[in-house]
């Protein structure tokens, strides 16, 4: 069934033009607003990272001074984490598909949903304003006591993150209430697609953990403005307390990034293996397990900060424990592939890339979770490589997989599959070329955040820089292909992949009203009987 028109993308109502988008309460339009904004900030983040790598092409200052390098890695972190990878999957695909996947016509609080996007944009504007005024040089973690004393615009950057946190909380509240209240008749919790389960678990982390970051950041501002002495040791404060409060949010935030990505992979694998997913309940519960146990591991960021040895042992134990639900997912995906009728389409290739890259990220995480090894590797390139394998190789590649899976539904048009496959391959090679040498550099002792390095690190630094060029080339090809396809590609049929979840019953793009009448759900999300 081809789309019979522009669907929700069409105009005709009031307000029209740009206002029909930025004041729309339609969850699909808000999803598109997020997509455009998030990808714009992704370009900013990639550019900053690319220039930082380029700076390291030779010894000493090459294209920037040390202070500029400090500002760049701070802003690269803030933009990539708070403006791209944390909101990317929940805000884009969650907003667009969660209501459709449960058979609802919108989220529970559509106006709150729009407000969430406006908060996001306000936070983004504040974060980027620091670029013009004088960017913070603290790193994205804003560690005390340096963040309390530096003369750069830390308060503004911190307030930007605070506003972005508000946006995240509102999205989380909306998703929890929507899942509880708006499921179609017959859509029990164990008929929910696993992407919805992942978003649900993520939403709880957003609600419970984000306020702690908000309080912590307000304390930083209060400390800078009023000198209240909570974190500043010179005033009797405890800088390690800052790290606790920061990581109580920021480690679970890693799961805000990766859990929705795992949800995407759980959708893609069964569709392209043409099999019911292996261990549905185990994957669903593992999402809740990751959300729960993942909230108890933050102290592994602080093994060498001066926190107690007892705390170190406890946090190390929980860190190993959280590997179990993560591994449950990977094993179940692989078991789903076993004896499946594999279709090597682009979303599936991205999903395979995700499994490979996430596995490296997860396993290097276990190495860092071991107390004794952490002392050697702490604050080295090994850590940088590890978290890029999780956040970019994991959450980022899952987001790209989602783009290639769902964009035909969102825009009603197909991209060029051959070019998309090449872009995946180039990005995958570039990513590994960029970040794998960093694992070795880290083991050899190369510290992170340094704008210069010893001559013995030159070869691997050069390989890594070349990798950044390959990765950027792959990304350019990918986004050019997706943009061209979205604007001028051939019309997409309503179910190009043969998926069984509810979004594939709607035309591409969906109409303004998702479902004309209340839907009765009679089968599970991975029951492919009757589909090609």
């Amino acid at each position, binding site marked *: 069934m081809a789309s019979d028109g522009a669907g929700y993308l069409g105009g005709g109502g009031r307000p029209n033009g740009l206002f029909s988008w930025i004041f729309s309460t339609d969850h699909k339009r808000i999803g598109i607003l997020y997509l455009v904004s998030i990808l714009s900030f992704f370009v900013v983040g990639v550019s900053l990272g690319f220039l930082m790598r380029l700076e390291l092409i030779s010894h000493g200052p090459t294209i920037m001074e040390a202070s500029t390098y400090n500002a760049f890695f701070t802003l690269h972190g803030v933009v990539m984490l708070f403006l791209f990878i944390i909101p990317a999957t929940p805000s884009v695909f969650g907003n667009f598909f969660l209501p459709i996947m449960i058979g609802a016509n919108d989220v529970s609080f559509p106006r709150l949903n729009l407000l969430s996007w406006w908060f996001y944009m306000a936070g983004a504007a504040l974060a980027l304003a620091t670029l013009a005024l004088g960017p913070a040089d603290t790193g994205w973690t804003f560690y005390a006591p340096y963040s309390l004393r530096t003369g750069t615009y830390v308060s503004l950057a911190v307030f930007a993150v605070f506003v972005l946190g508000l946006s995240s909380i509102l999205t989380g509240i909306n998703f929890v209430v929507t899942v509880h209240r708006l499921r179609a008749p017959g859509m029990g919790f164990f008929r929910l697609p696993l992407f919805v389960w992942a978003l649900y678990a993520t939403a709880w982390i957003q609600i*419970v953990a984000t306020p702690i970051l908000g309080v912590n950041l307000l304390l930083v501002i209060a400390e800078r403005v009023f000198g209240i002495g909570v974190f500043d040791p010179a005033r009797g404060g405890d800088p390690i307390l800052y790290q606790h409060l920061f990581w*109580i949010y920021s480690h679970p935030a890693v799961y805000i990034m990766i859990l929705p990505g795992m949800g995407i992979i759980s959708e893609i694998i069964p569709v392209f293996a043409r099999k019911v997913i292996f261990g549905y309940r185990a994957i669903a519960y593992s999402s809740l397990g990751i959300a729960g146990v993942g*909230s108890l591991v933050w102290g592994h960021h602080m093994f060498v900060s001066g926190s*107690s040895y*007892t705390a170190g042992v406890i946090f190390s134990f929980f860190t190993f424990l959280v590997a179990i639900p993560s591994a449950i997912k990977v094993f179940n995906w692989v078991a789903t592939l076993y004896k499946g009728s594999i279709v090597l389409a682009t979303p599936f290739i991205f999903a395979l890339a995700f499994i490979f890259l996430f596995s490296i990220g997860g396993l290097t995480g276990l190495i860092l979770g071991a107390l004794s090894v952490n002392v050697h590797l702490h604050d080295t390139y090994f850590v940088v490589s590890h978290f890029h394998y999780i956040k970019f190789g994991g959450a980022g590649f899952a987001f790209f997989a989602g783009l290639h899976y769902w964009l035909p539904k969102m825009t009603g048009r197909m991209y060029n599959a051959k070019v998309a496959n090449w872009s995946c391959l180039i990005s995958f090679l570039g990513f590994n070329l960029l970040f794998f040498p960093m694992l070795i550099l880290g083991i050899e002792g190369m510290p992170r955040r340094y704008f210069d390095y010893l001559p013995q690190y030159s070869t691997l630094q050069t390989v890594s820089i070349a990798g950044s060029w390959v990765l950027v080339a792959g990304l350019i090809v990918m986004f050019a292909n997706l943009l061209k396809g979205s604007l001028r590609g051939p019309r997409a049929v309503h179910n190009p992949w043969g998926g069984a979840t509810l979004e594939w019953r709607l035309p591409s793009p969906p109409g303004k009203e998702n479902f004309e009448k209340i839907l009765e759900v009679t089968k599970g999300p991975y029951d492919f009987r009757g589909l090609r």
Partner: protein
Amino acid sequence: MDEKEGGRERTGYATYALVWLGLMGLTWLSVTVSGLESGALRIAAPLAIASIKAVFVLAVFMHLRSERGLVRWVILIGLIAFLVSGALVFSDVAYR
């Protein structure tokens, strides 16, 4: 001050104002007690006062006293998260 609406109690403005004044009073008490040279009480008393304030905010401003069922249970998730996080932080502070 409070009215019944659709079977649920609706909080009146006077109640909000009274509770707010009460919270301000407790804040004053908290600041005063923190300034006293009274050993352990300097920490324990403000924490106790803060807990009482939190109960007021939850019950009145967040309408939990007129909610029932799932919404009341959901607040437990927040409390458990708070207690577990606090315990883990103290596993550092107490053994440093």
